């Protein structure tokens, strides 16, 4: 009798209760936020009209402006993204090595490297850009450093994980030959993390192309400066051109990265 009464249940009571608790907290937070957030309903109702007005002003797109300013700014944006990604490596590779438990075993080193990686990721690239603009003045150098410092956390964390997944067999073989520390790194670890390394760097470059397009809004160079200027002058046809250029470059960058990654892996 007892066995028939016994229903199969997917989750235990504790699992169910904790799930319901999460839902409840979410609902309370949601209701509380909706109640207290300052949203003016008239603005929301007005939005479709304003949106239509904006797109009407954007048309026709001012293509004549492309050779004047947009082309150079777009090249500058790509340069910021690429150089920023390269400079990241200078900081990210040592931090990744420090973070990998099969290379450095000291817990202190892990904590130090993790602190740098987390703080690099927590600060948004625009905030990094604001900081560097106030240090180096408006211009490309602030953009490059903002991209570089923002990417350290991402590249360092993923590269550290890739290093930890290395097959230790060849490392042991190298150690047995009496190879030095440097040659173990270069001939043991490096060939094994090479595919992961290139795919991480390419992936981050793709993200950086998107991010460097907006850094100009705070004065850190690139297409964002052109976008900001034309917006402040209410030249929406030029805004549309800049957006179109960003769109095209982002799509092309993604296609390039996907194709290279397919060949690498």
């Amino acid at each position, binding site marked *: 009798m007892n066995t028939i009464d016994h229903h199969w249940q997917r989750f235990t009571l504790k699992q169910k209760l904790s799930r319901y608790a999460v839902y409840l907290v979410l609902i309370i937070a949601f209701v509380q936020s909706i109640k207290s957030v300052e949203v003016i309903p008239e603005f929301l109702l007005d939005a479709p009209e304003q949106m239509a007005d904006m797109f009407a002003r954007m048309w026709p797109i001012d293509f004549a402006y492309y050779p004047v300013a947009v082309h150079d700014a777009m090249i500058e944006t790509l340069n910021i993204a690429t150089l920023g990604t390269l400079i990241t490596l200078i900081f990210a590779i040592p931090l990744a090595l420090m973070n990998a438990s099969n290379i450095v075993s000291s817990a202190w080193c892990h904590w130090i490297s993790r602190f740098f990686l987390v703080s690099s990721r927590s600060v948004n690239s625009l905030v990094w850009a604001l900081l560097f603009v106030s240090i180096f003045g408006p211009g490309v150098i602030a953009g490059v450093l903002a991209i570089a410092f923002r990417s350290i956390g991402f590249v360092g964390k993923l590269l550290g994980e890739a290093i930890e997944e290395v097959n230790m067999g060849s490392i042991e073989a190298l150690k047995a030959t009496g190879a030095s520390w440097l040659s173990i790194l270069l001939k043991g670890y490096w060939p094994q993390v090479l595919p992961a390394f290139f795919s991480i760097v390419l992936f981050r470059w793709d993200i950086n192309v998107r991010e460097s*397009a*907006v850094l100009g809004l705070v004065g850190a160079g690139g297409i964002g400066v052109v976008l900001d200027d034309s917006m402040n002058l209410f030249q929406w046809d030029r805004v549309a051109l800049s957006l179109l250029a960003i769109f095209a470059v982002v799509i092309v960058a993604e296609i390039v990265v996907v194709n290279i990654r397919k060949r690498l892996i």
Partner: protein
Amino acid sequence: MAGINSPQNRENPFKQNWFVTATWLIVICYVVYSFQAMGLSWERFSDGLGHASNLLGRMVPPNFSRWSLLLSGLIESLEIAIISSIFGIFLSLFLGLFAARNLMPTWVSTPVRMLIALCRTFHPVIIAILFVKSVGFGALAGILTLIVASVGFIAKLFAEAIEEISLKQVEAIRATGAGFTSIILFSVMPQVFSRFIGFSTYQLDSNLRNSTMVGIVGAGGLGGTLFSAFQRFDYDFVAAILIVIIALIMFGEFLSNIVRRIFR
């Protein structure tokens, strides 16, 4: 004995990888070119280092005296993050289902996939600018921006997760004569729900980060406070805001780890 260490026919056991060598050469050429193209120079950089120590010196005792301003910005950021995450997750649940090519016919999935891709291409800041123009300054623009960003991320990954499910369970449920809703609820969702929660908590984190940033273009939250502090050169207040942002994000990561553990 002589055969063991005869130096003549020793081959290098490590083959030269020409592809990688060529890549490094291109990289070096590129760095030289880009430094010239962008007019970066060492004087400019070393000039900046002096400013940097000055700036850090002015940041050092972080100034929490205007805590009420800080708190109101923080609460607005939190509200933007929560509301936009919930709307974004809810929308992505449906959009993800519609975008899955193994559940939907092509004429449904293709337009939905294009919509999701469109949400993903632009950086949140650019979307925020467009929304600030159309709904005015304030939290609403931030909420709409982050909803778009959430849809671009969660719906895409959710659709990919659904495309990887095992169709055997779908067939089993269909064999009982279940309708479309029941098939989704009892055969598709149990297979992908934990991954969906994973994406959602990640996006909640990411919305929390971005909600402190969209304020820079006027879309509400702590970013606006930060930007105006920068423009007024109140670097000690900037330091206080940055500390609060980092603490908030770490707290968010802690919470989402707990949620992920519960739903595993």
